[in-house]
């Protein structure tokens, strides 16, 4: 078995709301091997991006604790200077929205050259040619012309290719892709995913793929971590997760996907929203408020992540008694919210910086 490329232990990232810190990433553990794609799945506000930004040390106002072991060093203990060597070098990131991720005032080639210069990749005289090579590598037609273009002259798909070119410029060992296809057209999505897969094979890097799209997960991932309200609630190899999902949240997510068996039937809807950081019950099962038909006795106090099969971990005992209930309707749910049986809905939300 290949050794771990990245080892994350007890990562907790807290944001300040009204003078108090609340963890948005709560005691997260994960491992990524070389050449492995770990997908991090969850709905908006579950802490996926906050996790990614913590790994890169990109939060400027958050409190981050735990351990992020990468190449025998704890990244969280590194100072800015050391981190800057790693960022864009051995760990690179692909961003969600290509329309805003490039500096509008800089030519494409200068944005790529910047990362080459910082990490001293290639000899100075070769860098410009390498830039063109990179653009060609990510499938940009007429790379010489694009190199001299400004971001606004390119389409969204092209810009995302440029963002990817920047990410792979220094042949990173770990690639963090934060919803790389969310902002793109469906037709472009597949192309970009293929490209990432291809580059990953080529570079042999580990990938942390953040997404809320289970289709993307099925296509790309080797293993999956499902995140809810800052915690990983289930982690399993991708096949296992799709054929034998356990945690109520995972099962609800999978059942909200259109499928052939469901043809003509109603899709499952997970009622409610992810609770706000400062309004959640941190001791109980965090998903409990959204499956109110499961009695409180099914959940454990301070639920833990337990291995139920090799490589398959699930949090809380409630999965044992869980069944899907589609009869509960929106109105009923709203009544419960008003009656204070559910938290969430109201309360401050926090952006990922």
């Amino acid at each position, binding site marked *: 078995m290949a050794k771990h490329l990245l080892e994350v232990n007890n990562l907790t990232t807290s944001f300040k709301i009204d003078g108090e810190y609340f963890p948005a990433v709560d005691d997260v553990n994960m491992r990524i091997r070389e050449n492995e794609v770990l997908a991090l799945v969850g709905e908006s506000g579950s802490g996926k991006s906050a996790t990614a930004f913590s790994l890169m040390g*990109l939060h400027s106002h958050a409190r981050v604790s735990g351990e992020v072991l990468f190449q025998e060093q704890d990244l969280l203990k590194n100072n800015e200077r050391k981190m800057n060597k790693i*960022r864009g070098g051995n760990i690179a990131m692909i*961003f969600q929205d290509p329309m805003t991720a490039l500096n*509008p005032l800089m030519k494409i080639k200068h944005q790529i050259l910047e990362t080459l210069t910082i990490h001293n990749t290639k000899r100075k005289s070769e860098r410009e040619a390498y830039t063109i090579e990179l653009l060609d590598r990510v499938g940009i037609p007429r790379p010489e012309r694009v190199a001299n273009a400004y971001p606004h002259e390119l389409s969204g798909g092209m810009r995302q290719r440029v963002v990817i070119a920047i990410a792979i410029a220094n042949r990173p060992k770990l690639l963090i892709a934060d919803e790389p296809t969310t902002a793109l057209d469906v037709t472009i999505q597949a192309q970009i995913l293929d490209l990432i897969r291809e580059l990953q094979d080529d570079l042999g890097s580990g990938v942390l793929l953040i997404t809320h799209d289970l289709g993307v997960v099925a296509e790309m991932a080797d293993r999956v971590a499902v995140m809810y309200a800052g915690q990983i609630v289930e982690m399993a190899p991708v096949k296992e997760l799709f054929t034998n999902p356990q945690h109520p949240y995972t099962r609800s997510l999978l059942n909200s996907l259109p499928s052939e068996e469901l043809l003509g039937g109603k899709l499952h809807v997970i009622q409610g929203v992810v609770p706000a950081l400062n309004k959640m019950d941190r001791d109980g099962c965090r998903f409990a408020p959204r499956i109110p038909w499961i009695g409180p006795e099914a959940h454990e106090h301070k639920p833990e992540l337990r291995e139920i099969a090799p490589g398959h971990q699930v949090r809380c005992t409630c999965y044992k008694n869980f069944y899907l209930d589609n009869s509960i309707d929106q109105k009923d749910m709203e009544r419960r919210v008003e009656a204070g049986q559910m938290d969430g809905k109201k309360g401050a939300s926090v952006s990922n910086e």
Partner: protein
Amino acid sequence: MIKFTIRRLLITFPQLVLLSVLVFFMGSLMPGDALSGLIDPSIPAEAIEARREALGLNNPWYIQYRDWVVAMFQGDFGQSIFHQRPVMDVIGSRLMNTIWLSVFSVIIIYVIGIPLGLISGRYKDSLLDSVITGYTYLGFATPTFVFGLVVLWIFGYHFGVFPTNGSVGAGLEPGSVDYILSKINHLILPSFSIALIGLVGTVQYLRSGVIEAQQKDYVMLARAKGVKQVSLYLKHIFRNAIIPIAAFFGYELVGLLGGSIFIEWVYAYPGMGALFLESIQTRDFSVANVLILFYGFLTIVGALLSDIILSIVDPRIRIK
């Protein structure tokens, strides 16, 4: 780039024509004409009428307008009734004074305003930022002429370190070193009075520009590339934050050329602003008209200048 500039210049042309028509008509709407006040009552009415005919005052408006425009192209802007000299002579000596005052003020505004804005945005919510922001609020609330008077009283009168009126000391040879130093000495108080109030807008614009740019995705991407703090601010944040300031440069300069009226008045500085107020008080409309035309012209030029500068600093503007 050149194409853009030429196209932008072509747009300017109809604006200038429209402006000249407006100014001309406002001038002719005023009661009386150049002869109504100049004429001795003993002169027979026929002689006045003959003079009117000779001056073309009886021609239809479009002929008069044409003559006026043609004369201006030949450098003839008419006579000042009050000064009894050609308008150009009256304006000419004042024009340079105002240009110097404006250029000085603009330099001070940017030399002080840009660093203050960048610092205040960079160190948002620090003590330094609070002090700078406090100053900008005060600056917004203080009318320039009040501030000018206070400065005049403190430095010109109480300490007596700077001259309190005029644009140059008496009896100095134009072009000599002493003459230039005296000019600069006379510029210091009025230009600082203008600039210290005028720069607050620049500071606030920049501050919010920096704060906004800091949160942009491309700044996050730059950080993810491993860009150091210093270059992050210089290459990514400040450059983007400064665009609105650069774009505003033309308006700022032109605004000062036309807008230093009160300060010129307070410091009895012989510039165009003071001349404008004077010409209105003395009903010297031939001067006032040319000045209005001139200010309008400046505004158009300022907009042009701003557009050209913007197209240089922001590649997104160049297309179209």
